[in-house]
C-alpha cells in the first residue's frame, strides 16, 4: 500500500517536472537554433549554404583554416589584436579600479563621498556624448589608429570602481585594525589582505571588462584605420562588407569570434551571475 502510494506520487511529480522540462527545452531550442545554424553552415561547401537542409552533405572543417588564409583579410592578426587589447584594458581597469575602490571603501579622507557621488553620476551619461571630444583629444595627441588610443580611454571606469567598492564594503573592517596593530601600512593592507579577499569581485570585474572590451565596436570603428590593427568586430564588419557572400567562411569567422566568449561564460558563469545579481549590469 505504502509502496503504491509513493509510486503514484513519483509518477505525478515526474509528469509535473516533465512539463517544465519540456517548456524549458523548447525555449532553449528556439534560442539556440541560430547558433546551430551558424555552426553547421560554417562547415558547408559554398554551393550548399543556401539550401534548406542545414546539415552539410560534405563536411569541410577546412573552412576554418581558409578564413585565416583568405586574401584581403588578416583574421589571425585581428584575433590576436582583440585578445591583446581586451587583456590590456582589463588589466589596467581592474588594477586602477581596485586602487580607487580601496580608497573609497577603506580610507577615510575629507571629500571622499562627494567625489564618489561624482563618479556615480557619470555612470548615467551616455557614452556617445564623450566619444566626440575623446576623438578630438586623440587627434591632438596623435593617437588615432594606435593601440594606445584604443586601450587608454577604456582603462578607467566608474563602473568598475563602483562594483569593487561594493565588494570591499562586505569585508569586515576589523581586519584593517588587526593589520594596523601588526604595523602594516595601507599599501600592505591593500596588497596583502584586501586584494586576496575580494577575489570573486575581481574575477567578476575581469569577465565584465574583458567581454565588454572584446565586444566593443564604436570606439575601434572610429579610431582604427589600418587593416592590421583591426579588432574582431571591425574585422568581421569588413569581412561582411567585402566578401560577405561567402556565407560559409563568414559563419566560420563568426563562430570563431563567438567561441571564446562562450567558453569564458560557461567556465566562469558562477562569478558572473553573482556579479550581476549584486545589482551590477553588464556595461
Amino acid at each position: 500500500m505504502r509502496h503504491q502510494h509513493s509510486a503514484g506520487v513519483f509518477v505525478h511529480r515526474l509528469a509535473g517536472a516533465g512539463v517544465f522540462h519540456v517548456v524549458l527545452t523548447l525555449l532553449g531550442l528556439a534560442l539556440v537554433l541560430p547558433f546551430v545554424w551558424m555552426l553547421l553552415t560554417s562547415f558547408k561547401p559554398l554551393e550548399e549554404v543556401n539550401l534548406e537542409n542545414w546539415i552539410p552533405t560534405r563536411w569541410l572543417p577546412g573552412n576554418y583554416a581558409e578564413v585565416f588564409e583568405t586574401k584581403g583579410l588578416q583574421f589571425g592578426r585581428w584575433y590576436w589584436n582583440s585578445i591583446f587589447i581586451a587583456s590590456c584594458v582589463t588589466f589596467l581597469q581592474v588594477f586602477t579600479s581596485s586602487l580607487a575602490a580601496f580608497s573609497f571603501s577603506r580610507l577615510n579622507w575629507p571629500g571622499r563621498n562627494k567625489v564618489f557621488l561624482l563618479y556615480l553620476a557619470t555612470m548615467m551619461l551616455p557614452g556617445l556624448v564623450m566619444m566626440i571630444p575623446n576623438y578630438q583629444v586623440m587627434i591632438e595627441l596623435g593617437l588615432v589608429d594606435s593601440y594606445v588610443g584604443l586601450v587608454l580611454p577604456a582603462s578607467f571606469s566608474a563602473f568598475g570602481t563602483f562594483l569593487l567598492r561594493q565588494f570591499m564594503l562586505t569585508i569586515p573592517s576589523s581586519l584593517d585594525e588587526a593589520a594596523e596593530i601588526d604595523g602594516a601600512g595601507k599599501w600592505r593592507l591593500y596588497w596583502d589582505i584586501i586584494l586576496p579577499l575580494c577575489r570573486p569581485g575581481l574575477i567578476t570585474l575581469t569577465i565584465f571588462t574583458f567581454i565588454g572590451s572584446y565586444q566593443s565596436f564604436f570606439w575601434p570603428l572610429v579610431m582604427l584605420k589600418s587593416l592590421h590593427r583591426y579588432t574582431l568586430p571591425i574585422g568581421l564588419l569588413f569581412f561582411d562588407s567585402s566578401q560577405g557572400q561567402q556565407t560559409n567562411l563568414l559563419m566560420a569567422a563568426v563562430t570563431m569570434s563567438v567561441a571564446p566568449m562562450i567558453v569564458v561564460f560557461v567556465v566562469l558563469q558562477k562569478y558572473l551571475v553573482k556579479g550581476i545579481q549584486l545589482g551590477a549590469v553588464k556595461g
Partner: protein
Amino acid sequence: MSWSRAKKRSLALGLAFLAPNILGFLSFTLFPLVFSLILAFTNWDLRLHNIFRQETLRFAGFENFSRLLTERDFWKYLGNTAFLMMGIPFGIAGSLITAILLSRDLRGGSRRIWVYLVAVVLLVLGTGALLLAGAGATGMTILIAGLVGLILMGGTLGGSTVYRTLFYLPHFTAGVATFILWKKLYNPHTGPINNALRPLLQSFGSVIQATPPGVLRGIAWACLVGMAMLVLTALRRLSRAWRDGEAGRLSVVLGGALLLAPAALATRWAPWSEGGLALAGAAGAMTVLALAAAIVRKREFRCRHDEGLGFALMFCGVLMIAQFALLGLSRVAAALPAMAANPDGMTPPEWITSYYWAKPAIMIMGFWGAIGSNNMLLYLAGLSNVPQDLYEAASIDGASPMQRFWNVTWPQLAPVTFFIVVMSVIGGLQGGFEMARTMTQGGPAGATTTLSYFVYTQGFETGRLGYASGIAWTLFLLVFLVTLFNWKFGNKYVND
C-alpha cells in the same frame, strides 16, 4: 581652514590611491563631458576647422538645437527609436516568465533522472545512427530531435543551471558577430527563417483562400473591438483612480493621450480609412463621454496634478503597446486575402530589406537576446528573495496560481521590475547603433536609423562635430528626463 596633520595625511593617502583612476577619469570622462557641452554650442565642423583650413569658429548659441528640432529626419529617427523601444515590455515579460520557470527546483531523485536519461540516450543514439546512415531528407527532423534530446539531457542532469546558461548565451554574445549571423538568418530568399516559413505559409495560404473573406474581415474587426475594449477598461481604471484621488490631472491627461495614440495613428496607417476613422471616432466618443460624465458629476481632482503619474504612464504605456499589437494583427488579417491571392502563393516577409518589416525584424532579434538577459538573472535573484511564508499564506487562503502571482510575486518583484524598466528605457534610447551599422546601414530608406546612429553619421561620417554633440546632448536630456521621472514617480509606485 587649518587641517590637522592627520587629516592632511589621510587626504594625501586617499588621493594617492585614487590617483591612477581619477587621472583617467578626469581626462577621458569629465573633461570630454565639459568639452562636448561647449562643442554643442559651436559650429565646429571637422571639414571647416582643421589643420589646413580655419574658418571662423563661432559660438552658435542654440542654433544646433533649433536646427535639430526643425530637421525632418530627426523626428523620424526619434520615432524609429520609440518604435523599437516598444519591444521592451515583451522582453521584460519574457525574462520574468523564464525566471519563474527556472526558479522551480528541477532536480529530483535519482530514479527520475534515470527515466529521462534512458529516453534521452535512446533519442540521441538513434539520431546519431540515422545521421551516419546518411539520412538526408529527414536530416532536419533528426537534427531537431537530437538537439531536443541533448538539451533535455543537460537539463535533467544539471537542473536549471544548464537552462540558464543556454538562455543567457544570446545576450552574452550579442555584438557584431551575432548581428552578422542574424543578417544571414533574415535573408529573404535563402535565409533559414524564410526557408522554414515558406512551406508553412504556402499551406497557410491555401487555408486562407478556403476561408470566406468575411471571417478574416471579422477577425480584423474583432481586433479593433479588442482595442476599443482595452481603451475602455483603461479609461475606467483611470477614472477610478481619479475618483479615489490617486491620480492627478496631469496623470489622467497624459495617460489618456497614451491610450488614444494608437487610434489616432491608426487613421494614418490603416489601409482602409473607414476602419481607422470609425476607431478614432469610437475612442474619441468614449473619452468625451467619460469626460462629460465626470463633469456632470462635478468630479474634482483631489490631489496634486502629478499624483500617480508613474502608475498612469506605465499602465497606459503597456496598454498602448498592446493596442499597437492588436492593430498590427488586424492589419495583417485584413491584408491576408490579398496576400494569399498572389499567384506565387503567400510569400514570407523580406525582413530587413523591406521598409515595413525591418523594425519588427530588429525587435524579434532583440527579443531573442532579451529573454535570457541580465533581467532574467535579476528576476531570479528577486524571486529567491520572496518570503516563502507569503506563498504559504496565499495557499491557505485558497489562491489560484494566477492569483498568487498577481498578489504575491508581482508586488514583491516591483523594485526589480522598476530597476529593469529604468535601465531598459535608458538603454533603448541610446541603442540601435551597432545593429544599424552592422545589419542595415540605417536603411532601408532610414527605417532603422536610431538617434545614436544619427549621431554617428553626423559626427564621424560628415564631420559636423558641433551638431553631433548637440544631438548627443539632446539624447542625454531625454535619458535624463526619463530617469528623473522614474525616480520621482516610480519610487512611489514601488513603495505602494
